């Protein structure tokens, strides 16, 4: 026999009693027919505060919440948001008054699994709504878990690819160079010595690449500090050992939303990777500026450039950059011509909103 545990949050005692009775009846009739599959267990709360506390205390103790949207301590969609914010696995069926059926539909659009109109509901309808809501919630949770697992697998693949593309290439070259230096040791000491300088440079590069990958393994490290710090951590070891001169101009930026910070970092990473791997540049300029409401990242080099129409975008990670920019609502512009260098510019509007938020938090704290 399956027991369905129902939390009824309803301040009208008459309604609450009616729902209880319907569910009890349903349990009994089903049991009498012996082919019983389900029975209902009910807990009634009369305020949002009480209901939320019960759910918060033991979120796994309920399969479904019957939620009246109009309570003495909460009204409308807000009631729903406060219950769903608890993040319990329970399904939510909202109860609306006869005169505002629209509220039910809106509630479903905001995450409730179903709605019932008081005064236009009977026992059968209630039982069916509860059973369907639980099923719907279950498959919703399963899908969410599925996409989390997928994301984790894809993340592992990406890291493996980056390892292959950076550290392992550098270390292979390093060992090939070291072997050559040893072979030339007695025959041609001057050459051996110059090869050893490459070995040293490569081993430092490998260390820098390793550090970047370690940063990837702890994504928190990307968001727990300012954008300027993240850029410095990434760029300092990288730029020291490349044959181009570089100019950094990094403004202090107010704390950014995590996704924006990561997005901007990834775009920069992709652009700089292109420079290191393909551009043969002699000068690189990287700047992060705040201008009024705008955050501007620009990365310029004087390297070989490319024809944006000829190069397949995937090969240079241009589509990855586009996608990252779109995800965070930024504008991306890439200007390049064969032989004329490349300029990547990202423009994100929203600094103003950030400072407003900060001032309003400060006001609230007062």
């Amino acid at each position: 026999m399956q027991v369905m545990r129902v939390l009824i949050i309803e301040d009208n005692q008459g309604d609450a009693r009616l729902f209880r009775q319907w569910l009890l009846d349903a349990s009994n009739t089903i049991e009498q027919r012996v082919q019983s599959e389900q029975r209902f267990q009910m807990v009634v709360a009369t305020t949002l505060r009480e209901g939320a506390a019960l759910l918060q205390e033991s979120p796994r103790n309920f399969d479904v919440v019957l939620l009246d949207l109009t309570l003495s301590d909460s009204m409308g969609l807000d009631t729903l948001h406060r219950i769903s914010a608890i993040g319990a696995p329970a399904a939510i069926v909202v109860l609306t008054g006869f005169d505002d059926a629209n509220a039910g539909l809106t509630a479903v659009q905001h995450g409730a699994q179903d709605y019932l109109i008081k005064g236009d509901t009977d026992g059968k309808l209630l039982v069916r709504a509860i059973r369907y809501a639980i099923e719907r919630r279950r498959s919703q949770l399963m899908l969410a878990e599925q996409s989390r697992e997928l994301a984790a697998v894809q993340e592992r693949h990406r890291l493996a690819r980056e390892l292959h593309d950076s550290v392992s290439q550098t270390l292979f070259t390093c060992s090939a160079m070291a072997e050559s230096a040893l072979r030339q040791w007695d025959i041609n000491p001057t050459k051996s010595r110059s090869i050893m300088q490459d070995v040293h440079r490569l081993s430092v590069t490998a260390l820098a690449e390793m550090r970047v990958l370690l940063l990837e393994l702890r994504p928190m490290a990307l968001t727990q500090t300012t954008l300027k710090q993240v850029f410095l951590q990434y760029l300092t070891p990288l730029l020291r050992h490349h044959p181009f001169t570089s100019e950094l101009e990094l403004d202090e930026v107010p704390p950014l939303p995590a996704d924006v910070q990561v997005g901007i970092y990834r775009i920069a990473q992709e652009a700089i990777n292109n420079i290191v791997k393909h551009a043969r540049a002699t000068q690189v300029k990287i700047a992060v500026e705040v201008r009024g409401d705008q955050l501007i990242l620009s990365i310029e080099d004087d390297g070989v450039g490319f024809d944006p129409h000829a190069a397949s975008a995937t090969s240079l990670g241009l589509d990855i950059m586009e996608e990252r920019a779109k995800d965070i609502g930024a504008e991306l512009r890439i200007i390049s011509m064969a032989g004329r260098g490349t300029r990547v510019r990202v423009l994100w509007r929203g600094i103003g909103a950030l400072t407003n938020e900060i001032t309003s938090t400060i006001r609230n704290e007062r």
Partner: protein
Amino acid sequence: MAEEQKIRVIIADDHDMVRKGLRVLLENFDDIEVIGEAGDGQAAVDICRRLSPHIVLMDMIMPRLGGIEATERLRVVCPDVHVIALTSFENEDNVQRALKAGAIAYLMKNVSGDELANAVRRAFNGLSTLAPEAAQILIRATTRPPSPGHDLTEREREILALMVEGLNNREIGERLVISSSTVKNHVSNILSKLGTNSRTQAVAVTVENNILATK
């Protein structure tokens, strides 16, 4: 050894430093001469037509045109050039695809100077060399039970693809115009063929083993 008898080699790799490292490594051997470099597969094909080398050291993952595609193309436009695949990837797919495309040897990027030079000399004489890792992979591929998902039917692969997209049975049914109970049958067959007991696991196994990409 007389100049004209040197084995002429081209290095194709998208990392500048790797090309330099290989060049320096091959400079240790008097019978081998690096006559050119290419930063992607297309450049490798172009330079081969111009310089007709004996051997191309070919990285597998490159922009514009990958190493496998470039190897295939070379077999048509420069059939006398021998390709040595040189890569840091050692999965089964890559080894088999490279050899099918026409590579005469498959080496890993952990090869020593002597090993590389020997592979170049052998390739010059039309002989194959396999890195131990690649040999291992080929042996395993011929002896071990086939990979998960090898026995899926076309229909099942189609349905699995929709499962990966996150569709439920009803939505899959609508998409393929079949009843959801038919979908359910297919799904349970898929789960058992993949040796999994939930959709979530099946999707994870699919992505992990790249089941839908092969074949």
